[in-house]
């Protein structure tokens, strides 16, 4: 059986038994609801807008099987299998002529695809599976021996990678590298590659087009130059970078050590580090070190709660080092074919033996937490309610339920944290024609409640039970609590203002 077929078979089987059947919050996929909904409704998800993801994931949503979320999850699985295949091809290309190249490349590709973190990302809706694929494609295309005419294409792939995830700009400096003659490319080639990058980046222009049609998910409303820049530059998250304390940074480096051992086991890590020091090609050393270090430092210093997702290219670089480590060992044993085969067989066996141990850790095939949350909330909320929501998981799940699946369209869902943004108010105005939005410089929940009397007011948050209280006469309202959902609803006839009190 050919090695690519083995990769497809093993990863395909593992992923198909563990993939999430519906929307999920597992494996850092709280944003999944936002991405699914934006893809399905012609919308624009959170910054930087991910136009490439929107285009490529959409065809999967038409596959006539399972839920809309499941079909979008499938796209991640396919991207991860493709990434493993490209990694295999990349290693075959660069290890060509060495003993056991085929087997070494197969083991490294499977090690990547079966690493718990990579496996987890293959099962949920997020942009990181595609990000991993684009990173290995970029590095592969950069290193291919092709005619000069394709220099534009090399740049284009780098540019297009950044239209899926903005952090891909961190590998842009690699286009300075020449894989075939001198260490650096000439000014002319560099210029052509830069034009290629700009051509790829032009896909971002899709976002203003989508924004023009006022979709329900329309982050930034990128119809003006300023709002477009705000969106694609991820301005809303700029203060996340370098926002950690020194102690947090140390803690993250320690956690990285744990995660690395978790991905590849101590045998794999030993081989990977050995491979890093065994890299004979200076260019390969620069490319893989740059890829690994840039994303490691970004993940460590980026202050979001789920920043470890940015480590995925690090795991990719490590799989390449692992292959080089194995290759060096095979060269050492060049005249001992039986020992070579035994070593390769042992590593392959370790990979297979690990599967049942990783399986329960990554398995989300029975994960219905998000779906149950949606079902319960939509069943409990009274008709025509005004519902304020806090928390990524809660907001995006309910967007998915209402905007993508068209359930309970009578409810007005308000993401409280987005109220200070003008584009969000405009989006609410288009999405809910019946809502009254008072003209205020700073729109607070109280003003919205006052402008929309006779609606039940609800509040949903992730952290702790919350109670809504109004200061009007008690006789004018009744309240109902749903402690298991952290949901409290309050019925009011005339609400001068309402505020919420948390129950500890």
């Amino acid at each position, binding site marked *: 059986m050919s090695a690519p077929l083995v990769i497809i078979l093993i990863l395909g089987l593992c992923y198909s038994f563990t993939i999430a059947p519906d929307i999920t919050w597992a494996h850092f996929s*709280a*944003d999944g609801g*936002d991405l699914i909904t934006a893809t399905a409704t012609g919308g624009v998800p*959170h910054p930087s807008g991910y136009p490439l993801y929107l285009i490529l994931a959409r065809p999967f949503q038409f596959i006539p099987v399972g839920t809309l979320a499941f079909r979008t999850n499938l796209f991640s699985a396919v991207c991860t299998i493709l990434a493993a295949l490209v990694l295999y091809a990349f290693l075959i290309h660069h290890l060509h002529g060495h003993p056991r190249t085929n087997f070494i490349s197969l083991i490294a590709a499977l090690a990547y695809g079966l690493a718990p973190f990579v496996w987890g990302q293959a099962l949920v809706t997020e942009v990181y599976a595609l990000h991993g694929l684009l990173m290995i494609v970029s590095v592969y295309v950069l290193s291919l021996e092709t005619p000069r005419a394709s220099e534009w294409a090399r740049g284009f792939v780098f540019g297009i990678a950044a239209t899926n995830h903005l952090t891909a700009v961190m590998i842009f400096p690699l286009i300075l590298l020449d894989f075939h003659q001198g260490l650096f490319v000439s000014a002319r080639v560099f210029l052509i590659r830069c034009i290629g990058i700009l051509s790829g980046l032009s896909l971002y222009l899709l976002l203003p087009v989508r924004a023009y049609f006022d979709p329900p998910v329309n982050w930034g409303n990128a119809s003006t130059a300023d709002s477009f820049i705000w969106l694609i530059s991820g301005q809303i998250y700029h203060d*996340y970078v370098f*926002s*950690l304390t020194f*102690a*947090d*940074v140390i*803690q*993250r*480096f*320690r*956690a990285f*050590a*744990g*995660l690395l*051992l978790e991905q590849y086991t*101590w045998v794999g*890590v*030993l*081989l990977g*580090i*050995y491979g890093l*020091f*065994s890299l004979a090609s200076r260019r390969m050393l620069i490319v893989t070190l740059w890829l690994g270090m840039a994303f490691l430092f970004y993940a460590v210093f980026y*202050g*979001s*709660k*789920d*920043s*470890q997702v940015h480590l995925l290219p690090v795991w990719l670089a490590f799989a390449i080092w692992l292959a080089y*480590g194995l290759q*060096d060992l095979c060269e*050492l044993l060049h005249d001992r074919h039986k020992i070579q085969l035994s070593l390769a067989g042992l590593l392959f066996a370790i990979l297979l033996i690990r599967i049942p141990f990783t399986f329960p850790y990554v398995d989300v095939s029975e994960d219905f937490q998000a779906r149950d949350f949606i079902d319960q909330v939509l069943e409990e909320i009274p008709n025509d309610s005004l519902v304020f929501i*806090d*928390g*990524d998981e809660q*907001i*995006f799940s309910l967007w998915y339920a209402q905007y993508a699946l068209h359930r309970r369209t009578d409810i007005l869902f308000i*993401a*409280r*944290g*987005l109220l*200070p943004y003008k584009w969000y108010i405009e989006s609410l105005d288009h999405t809910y024609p019946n809502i009254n939005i008072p003209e205020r410089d700073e729109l*607070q929940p109280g003003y919205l409640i006052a402008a929309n009397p006779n609606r039940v007011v609800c509040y949903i948050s992730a952290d702790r039970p919350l*109670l809504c*209280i*109004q*200061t009007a*006469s*008690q006789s004018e309202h009744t309240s109902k609590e749903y402690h298991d959902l952290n949901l409290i609803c309050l019925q009011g006839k005339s609400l001068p*203002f309402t*505020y*919420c*009190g*948390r*129950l*500890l």
Partner: protein
Amino acid sequence: MKRVTRFSIAIVLVGILALTASGVWASQKFKGTVPTLPPNGEGKCPDTVDMGTALFTPQDDDCTISVEWIGTDTGEYADPPNGLVCVSDAFDVVVEPPTTLVKVCYAYPPELAEKDAKIYRLNEEANPAVWVEVTGAEIKDGVICVTTTPGYFALIGNP
């Protein structure tokens, strides 16, 4: 570099990784995709500052007010009186001029009434500082209110 040297370095580094490895990825709780509203509020009198769990209304027309959410654990400033605990959010209220009175209203659902919760103000002049109940509280329509001078406020009641 010789193979033995490379392999030795790799073994040492794996050892260091194994010894320093930790399972916790330090994270800042509130930094997700959707931004959270800042825990501070400010306004020009007589506007009310709405902090979600409490409202602060200056009793004058010519002043400025700023309110900072300081958490739910008042122990950093002073422990609650014996046997009592902080049952809601605590705030630092600053009004300019500082002699301006402020009406402080906390959400007061039945659960908090059952805990006999009352509004306390931090007496910073005492050494050490102590939480002192603000007398004259008015409880009506699910809200407990007092009018007093600016300072640190907390809702404290039975556990």
